[in-house]
């Protein structure tokens, strides 16, 4: 019976309209200024911070990986260098040894040659000396023989004659 007439919630009233407008208006202003803007800013800041931290961690991880790769590379390089150096050293040693050996051989050969030459010279000298001595001895012997043979006149003439004949044949 009283239902619709008393159904006040469906009747717009000036008092409640005005108060709602005022209260919600103030609420809206104060909340946006003192609550939602700072909260929104803080949330945004935190989100950016978290994102940055994640990005940085990722970057650090990547850098670490890079560093490790670089270390590996350096190590590899060092290893290679060492191998190279060893090889070079070995080669140098080999070369040195070969050279020394060649030198020694040469020296030896030279010495042998020089000795051989000396021997040859000595031999030549000995031969010359022997020839000289043998010639002298032959001359002395021939002198002595001649002196004895040509002691008489006939023998001298026979010999001279013999010599003359030999010359004629030549």
């Amino acid at each position, binding site marked *: 019976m009283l239902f619709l*007439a008393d159904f*006040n919630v469906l009747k717009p009233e000036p008092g409640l309209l005005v108060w709602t407008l005022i209260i919600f208006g103030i*609420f*809206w202003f104060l909340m946006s200024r003192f609550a939602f803007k700072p909260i929104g800013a803080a949330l945004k800041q*935190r989100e950016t911070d978290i994102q940055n931290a994640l990005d940085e961690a990722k970057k650090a991880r990547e850098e670490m990986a890079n560093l490790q790769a670089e270390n590996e590379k350096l190590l590899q390089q060092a290893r290679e260098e060492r191998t190279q150096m060893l090889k070079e050293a070995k080669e140098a040693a080999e070369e040195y040894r070969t050279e020394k050996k060649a030198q020694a051989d040469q020296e030896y050969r030279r010495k042998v040659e020089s000795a051989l030459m000396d021997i040859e010279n000595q031999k030549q000298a000995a031969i010359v000396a022997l020839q000289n001595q043998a010639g002298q001895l032959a001359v002395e012997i021939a002198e002595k023989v001649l002196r004895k043979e040509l002691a008489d006149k006939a023998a001298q003439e026979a010999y001279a004659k013999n010599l003359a004949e030999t010359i004629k044949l030549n």
Partner: protein
Amino acid sequence: MAAIRRFWIALTFSGLSVFAFAQDGHEHHEHPHAGQHPPTTAHPADHGGPCGHSINAPKTFNAGDNAVHHISDANVINIIGELYFHLPVILKDERGWTLTTSAAFHPHHHGNGENSHNGYALVHGSVMRLKNERFAEGQHKIDDYTHEEIAGEDGKKKTRYNAVIGGQCVPLEAKTTYDGGILGGGVTSFMDFSITRNVFTMLLTALILFLIFRAVAQAAAKRRGQAPKGLQNFIEPFYTFIRDEVAKPSIGPKYEKYMPYLMSAFFFILGLNLIGQLPIFPGSANVTGNISVTIVLAIITFLISTFSANKHFWEHTLWMPGVPAPLKILILTPIEILGLFLKPFTLLLRLFANITAGHIVILSFVSLIFILGKSGESTGGAAAGIAASIPLTLFMMALELLVAFLQAFIFTMLSATYIGTAIEEPHHDHH
């Protein structure tokens, strides 16, 4: 300014001395009781006399009346029994402003005042005006309130309240409402700008929410660069939810500008929905279930979306490209313009209807106790009513908790959608 200050002092005073006032009202009620009661019961009004039926007359319990009474706004908060929390009363009529508190009317049973004040009376917790010059000033003792059916000026039947003062029938006039007489209201000789139960609840809710959010904002500022803690963890997900699930998808890249409004609307509605569930204080005020409140909120959404609207939106609303001109003039444009106003209308109606319906259903379930108990005559019936009512009410309250969140979310979501539609940039995807 001085009047306002006096008023707030009055509010504080009435709030602090609520028990004193209640005690005062009780005494007023007790003393004249012996002398008043017999004439009231023997009053001709009870039998439909010249003043109509007494509103205090014993009658069968009417669950509908009870529910309507409880979901309505009131000028006083009834805590329990005859214990009242008094509120400021601000009235405007042709004489000027009347500033007082509801304590001036000495409300007793059901929020009916024991006396008039400055030509006004308190009936069912609402201020009404006495339409008789004799009682326009000072305080007059009111013996009873009656209601009667009268024929209105337009021939339709209307219900009129009367105050019985010294055996005389004084008609009462309700406050101004803007329903155009459709619902029995209309523009009358006075307006009620009081801090009513709804206004008080709004102030209280706004204050509580502001304090909570201020604390969270300060914590957020103080703990910058640190993990959130305590209340922050509770409130911040709401913010991110509204931002990521409502504002960003509905509005698009310009969402940030509208975040404060969406958040304010969401929490204002949610806070009022939730505080309306409290039965004791502030008296389960049905704020978001009052059309005046939802009208204001819907109008704000309407204004924001309309004033943010870009050329693209107006073009598509008023002169849809690619449609023949006669079709546009006859059908499309009128429908689009109608839709412009229908959108906020559905927005305000949806929130209002959902919350009011929830309150009515809960009150109806509680009323089961009185219906089955035959208003106190049958104890067994009341016991059966309690047994049926408690689980039903409990279920309904749980459902209302869900509705409180859901309706706040839907209002915010739809507001965001309307704003998003208005500021949407044209798509350049010509196939």
